[in-house]
């Protein structure tokens, strides 16, 4: 099958995948959206809706969804993979049956695999034969993308072809895609910010104001950079859209799912009850589960991550977590950050 039938295939019909596919269709690109369930494909194709993930939004008429993976993959040179982190390995394994060496794979998944601590690009590498892999990340809340608000993101890959093809795919639209080569930093930024967003939500839920949120965001950025550098990232990435950019949006926006969950935690709701009430995955929870033990094994001190782990999995109350954070000794502000 010719690779040129489509410009891109978006793999995953969640909120972000659907929003990206909609953006591209509006730009006149030939794009298909792969969804797992036939009834979801039907809903997109017949009613231009994806009510479960983007309630109330009308999708562009030209957006076609499919649940036939091999046929869709064979017709597209570039795949934008947008599935939750815990489902990525399974989907990637399916992709591995049909992806070939000339495919470009760009994922937009903001998470780290639990247990293995692997980044999403590593999972794609292990499960497919594709080598030209990249990560796209930034402050991109799906409802705002759907509404056509101007936004920016970074696409990082060691292959310039991946960066250039992704940039030209989004060229001319409302999502400005900047290029980079630091895949690790881009992925760490995207995953780590979910933990900090949870923490910022907790602070909001406890009734604290902007001072507290800024404290969490700034110290959270430091923890992100410390962790990122320890696993091989370029520290400067965290000053860009995939770092501070994403952190600002997700920590201050009520649209952020992680922030919403944090807020409910801060008001004293239990995690299990919150998760049971949501239709979608909360990446911050699984990312905390992955990052905390890895940071311990690397000998890194990440107090906010530590506190969130206590709150989510060790029965700490929001008050406990706050007290422990406030009781920590204060040192030089940047003393724990090593550049490069």
């Amino acid at each position, binding site marked *: 099958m010719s690779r040129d039938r489509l410009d891109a295939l978006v793999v995953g019909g969640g909120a972000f995948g659907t929003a990206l596919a909609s953006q591209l269709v509006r730009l006149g690109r030939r794009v298909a959206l792969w969804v797992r369930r036939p009834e979801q494909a039907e809903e997109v194709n017949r009613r231009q809706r994806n009510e479960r993930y983007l309630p109330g939004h009308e999708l562009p008429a030209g957006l076609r969804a499919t649940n036939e993976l091999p046929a869709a993959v064979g017709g597209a040179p570039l795949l934008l993979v947008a599935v939750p982190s815990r489902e990525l390995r399974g989907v990637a*394994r399916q992709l*591995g*049956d049909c992806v*070939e*060496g*000339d495919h470009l794979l760009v994922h937009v998944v903001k998470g780290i695999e639990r247990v293995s601590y692997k980044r999403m690009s590593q999972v794609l*590498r*292990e*499960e*497919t*034969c594709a*080598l*030209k892999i990249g990560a796209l990340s930034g402050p991109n809340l799906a409802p705002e993308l759907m509404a056509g608000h101007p936004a920016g993101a970074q696409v990082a890959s*060691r*292959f*310039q*072809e991946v960066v250039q093809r992704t940039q030209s795919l989004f060229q001319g639209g409302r999502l400005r895609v900047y290029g980079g080569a630091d895949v690790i930093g881009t992925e760490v930024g995207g995953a780590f910010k979910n933990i900090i967003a949870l923490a910022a939500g907790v602070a909001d839920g406890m009734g604290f104001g902007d001072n507290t949120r800024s404290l969490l965001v700034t110290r959270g950025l430091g923890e992100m950079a410390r962790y990122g550098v320890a696993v091989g990232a370029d520290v400067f990435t965290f000053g860009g859209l995939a770092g501070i950019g994403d952190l600002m949006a997700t920590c201050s926006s009520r649209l952020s799912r992680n922030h919403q969950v944090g807020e409910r935690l801060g008001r004293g709701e239990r995690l299990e009850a919150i998760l049971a009430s949501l239709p979608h995955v909360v990446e911050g929870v699984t990312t905390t589960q992955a990052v905390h033990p890895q940071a311990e094994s690397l000998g890194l001190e990440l107090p906010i991550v530590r506190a969130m782990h206590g709150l989510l999995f060790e029965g700490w109350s929001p008050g406990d977590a706050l007290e422990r954070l406030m009781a920590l000794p204060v040192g030089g502000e940047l003393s724990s950050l090593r550049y490069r």
Partner: protein
Amino acid sequence: MRAKDRERVLAEVVQRVTERASATPQQLEQSLFDTLYEERRRLEAERHRRSGRAALAAYERVQARALKAGPEEQRALLRELVGGFAAEVAGHFDERIYHLTTKAVPAALTLLFNAVSPLRLLQQIPSGLSRLDDQLEISGETEAFKQAVARGTVVLVPTHASHMDSILAGYMLYRLGLPPFVYGAGLNLFHNRLIGFFMHNLGAYKVDRKKKAAIYKEVLKTYAGVTLELGYHNLFFPGGTRSRSGAVESRLKLGLLGMGLDAYVRSLRAGNPRPDVVVVPCTINYQLVLEAETLIDDHLKEVGKSRYIIEDDEFSRPRRVFEFVSRLFELQSRIHIRVSRPLDPFGNQVDDQGRSLDARGRAVDRRRYVLVGEEPGFDAQRDQEYTRELARAIVEAFRRDTVFGSVHLVAWVVFRWLQEQNPGLDLYRLLRTGGAEPSMPLLEAYRRIERVREAMRQEEAAGRMRLDATLRDGDSVQLLADALAHLRVFHVTPALERRGDRLLHVDRNLLLYYQNRLADRGLPPQGVPA
């Protein structure tokens, strides 16, 4: 290499290198004058020799002409320089010897091992060659290696600890019934009276590490690439040089390594019916390394930024080579060559049918990696990243297939203990003074040997390293005795000696060298900086 192919290779090399280096007038000028500058600088240091003075004078004449020349003449001068380098790299060639060595490999190797090489000296040991057979253990994916050779063109990429490696790799090829491989050897080896003669005639080409001109490096790379395209199997040491620290290579030279991919793409474009280039990693493992003392000295100087090119080491002294080999034989010390699974130029494993496989074992159409549009083509940035993938896969294979012996374990235990005893001491002072404790209690050594060995057994069970039989199965008393015997017999000073119930550390540089092979393996004790 056959004589007719040699001419073809030379012509191709000169053509390609000159073309690339003169793509624009600025590039042409830069290539030409950079080469002249680098060569004159090198020859300045050789003024004391008549040949050096003559060569310098010749380069000065070319420089004078180049300054007045227009683009056409500059291009001709560059072509001349490239031609000179290429002819020197390809070396002298005697087709009669080539036929002797390829058509009658056993006879040639008998000659190699019994007449000219260091192993000639084995004649002084009864049944020398058969003992080499006994003590050289070749294991791993040897069948897959042979099939890869039968099916396409192979690049063998061994670890590199000693000049002995080239001889042993050659001997392995003979034992497996494979033809000689084209191989880039340092100029010092050609000057080595023991093996220089065969270097010339078994497909070896010359690498002069003193030549720093970029064009010269291009000639070397292109030479390897063109021979691969013509179907000559190559041997590269991907670390570039012998490991100075004693550690297994973890950073590889990508330039030469990338020539496999270059040859693959060119062969696809040319419609070559056998375009495939397969890379076969292998580890060469000794309990003792002939040149250990010189190498670790150089490593320590490099860390202190005064590295030099080693021209005169243990390998250039036949008596030392003889002593080394005979001591190894006396100890019945086995040398392990372990062949890893073949890889394609993108780092994927290749199965026995020659198919590339992804990490889940699914067949991959490797041609698709190099498509530019619908046809195979080059993309310098992409291809560099592919070569990085290949390098990563080779490094992983090296790690999995490194075979450790008692010397590595005991050196690790003693050196780590020394560091623990002297927490404030920097590495150089520790090496020089030995710190506060001149010896380690024997019982403590046994206890630690057992602990580290257990961790190593677990690593082996998980497929992350290999242990030789003594290390895997011997008790800690046998293990320590084996390591002490090795360390005692060959090096000028024994690295470690037993005195009553203590272990005396005598040559800490050597202990550092041998224990470095176990660095980054997560073995206990943790948290002690190397």
